[in-house]
């Protein structure tokens, strides 16, 4: 249905601009590609990403006095399919830019970015490599990468005695980023690290891995597990086995808010080591409130982590287009490098000579709200952790050469 909505919406927008003044070449819509997950168990994540982009598009209105037309493509959550679909967006739909990709798609597009020659702004890719050793001039990232999350985790541990005394254990998927998180936790000064186990990617029964954590006597479990179904299954089963009673679960990159709702009270057993976004940031930052309200008006639910992030990426892009004064890819890239924009995750700009946005992470426990807001009953309290504390001063330091 989301597809239908966006179709209606774009139709509505184009109607508007037709009515406003005669249809000149200037009225012809700017096409923006959205390459994200549209089917399968991970779809809720894609839904949030798309919804965020739609909301930001509506909030921003016309760009260069032209309407925006979103072209949505299914990435099938598969690298090779994503490359084909990105090629389709560029070759067939002539989009000015691509939004909405997650780690798997972004990593795949990195290799072909120089062929595609359009700016790609991702808001949902954890893998540090994307903006570090593998950074590419076409590929920007607004969400914080895994090593930044690790820094905030450090801070969190130092601030929380309970976590300092804890016996740490890692239960993760067999992804490189999971191992990165694990090794970084292991590296934290005077932290008691009692072991780690990495599950095969198609794991549905987490019992053996929970047993490992049990045997190691873990009291704090960091869980670099794929967001979505697997994480949901893991947390539910950890709860089932009573692991949540004996150990605190730490999510390295926060929980999507739809997942928090599903978990309900269980989510209060989870600590985020630094979320990519948190809608309760609105208590401190008006742009977030503005976005949340627009989002709720449009989609009738709370703006989730992925939505806030993708919304921010979208706003960055549109502002860059406006500044560039054209949709020429090169011009947009140059603009992206210099602009600073107020977004739902704070005031954003990309690190000089780098592609990583200087974005805050959001610490704080998941808790029940005194009164439901935007239909949400559980949410994370948002204490921003600035990029200045989590990211090296210059891009060159961490090996990004453009």
């Amino acid at each position, binding site marked *: 249905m989301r597809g239908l909505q966006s179709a209606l919406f774009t139709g509505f927008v184009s109607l508007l601009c037709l009515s406003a003044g005669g249809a000149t070449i200037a009225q012809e819509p700017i096409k923006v590609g959205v390459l994200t997950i549209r089917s399968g168990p991970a779809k809720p994540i894609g839904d949030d990403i798309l919804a965020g982009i739609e909301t930001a598009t509506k909030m921003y209105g016309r760009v260069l006095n032209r309407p925006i037309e979103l072209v949505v493509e299914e990435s099938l959550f598969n690298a090779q399919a994503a490359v084909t679909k990105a090629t389709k967006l560029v*070759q067939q739909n002539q989009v000015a830019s691509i939004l909405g990709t997650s780690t798997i798609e972004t990593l795949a597009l990195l290799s072909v970015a120089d062929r595609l020659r359009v700016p790609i702004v991702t808001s949902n890719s954890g893998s540090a490599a994307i903006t570090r050793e593998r950074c590419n001039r076409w590929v920007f990232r607004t969400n914080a990468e895994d090593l930044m999350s690790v820094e905030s985790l450090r801070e969190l541990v130092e601030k929380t005695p309970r976590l300092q005394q804890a016996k740490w254990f890692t239960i993760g998927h067999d992804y490189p980023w999971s191992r990165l998180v694990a090794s970084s936790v292991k590296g934290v000064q005077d932290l008691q690290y009692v072991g780690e186990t990495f599950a095969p990617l198609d794991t549905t029964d987490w019992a053996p891995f929970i047993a490992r954590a049990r045997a190691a006597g873990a009291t704090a479990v960091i869980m670099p597990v794929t967001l979505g179904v697997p994480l949901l299954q893991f947390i539910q089963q950890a709860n089932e086995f009573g692991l949540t009673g004996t150990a605190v679960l730490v999510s390295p990159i926060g929980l999507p808010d739809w997942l928090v709702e599903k978990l309900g009270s269980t989510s209060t057993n989870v600590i985020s080591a630094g979320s990519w976004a948190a809608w309760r940031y609105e208590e401190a930052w008006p742009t977030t409130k503005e976005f949340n309200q627009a989002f709720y008006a449009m989609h009738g639910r709370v703006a989730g982590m992925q939505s806030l992030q993708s919304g921010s990426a979208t706003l960055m892009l549109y502002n860059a287009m406006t500044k560039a004064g054209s949709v020429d890819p090169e011009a947009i890239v140059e603009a992206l490098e210099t602009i600073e924009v107020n977004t739902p995750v704070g005031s954003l700009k990309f690190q000089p000579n780098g592609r990583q946005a200087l974005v805050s992470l959001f610490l704080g426990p998941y808790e029940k709200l005194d009164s439901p807001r935007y239909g949400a009953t559980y949410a994370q309290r948002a204490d921003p952790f600035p990029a200045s504390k989590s990211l090296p001063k210059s891009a060159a330091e961490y090996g990004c050469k453009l």
Partner: protein
Amino acid sequence: MTTEALAGRAIAMKTEARRRQATALLIVAGAVLLALLPFAGVRSFTITLLTEALIFAIWAMSLDLMTGYTGMLTFGHAAGFGLGGYAAGYFAREVTADFVASLLVAELVILSVAVPIGFVAIRLSGAAFAIVSLCIAQVFFQIAVAWRSVTEGMDGLVGVPLPTVLGRTINVGTEFYLLTVLIAGAVCLGLRQLVISPFGRTLGAIRVNEDRAAAIGINVRLHKWLVFVMSWAIAGVGGTLMVFMKAGTTPMSLYWIESGNVLIMAIFGGLGTLFGPVVGAVSFVFLRDALTTGFEVWQLAFGVVFVIVVLVFPSGLAGIVSRVWMLLWRARS
């Protein structure tokens, strides 16, 4: 034994021979036709899809040799394809992007693996072979995930450069498409020659009845072993092309879902025809692209189309086409 009887046999063999040449010509003509498409104003993305489809076609044909002609049902055919991709991709990135060199390396790697594995695997037949092939592919998948120093784990092998042929860089697009057409055509023609050769006929005998084949002096295991290795090697050609086209690969290229896809392409198009897998691959690629664009329950639609085709057209899509072709042939002679 009457003279007219002899004459009849001679004629029969002549028409047989004529048909062979006709089919060979048909393949060449088809390849030429495909090669002309980019210059006939076909949209560039259609060319992209066709390139992908032809690569899959090579893969599906290799499966047809094993499953369609020799009757070895495999659920793990992603192994050869993915392995070739990794080998060629890694070599191209680390050493030289020369296409021929990368292809050779990929084939060497595949042979060094397929020869011993095949030697064991071909002792099984039927469902046991199918499951064991699945297991083998899944083990390769796990190795690709775990051998991070080379494969970079689930992040996948990225940054594979554009291929060069005779020092000239082949841009993905029309140039790469032409290269693919050339190779796919060669593979198709080669396989065609193989299956009409005595060797090919022997495979048919093995497919129909292994005991009988053995009883007429066919070394069944040797034949199945050769087929296993050849099939992987040809799949590796496809894998090599794919890794260059996508500039990278991930362990998912070895996952059982991929094995399922190629099996489906081949059977859907029509096993034991060589032509069928090509049709199957093309329709699979275009169908999937059409259904996954702005259509969120594409799985449902895919399933419906699929079931209908299977129910209405036995022996796959190629069944229809080849029947028409035979009719035309009869009409001519």
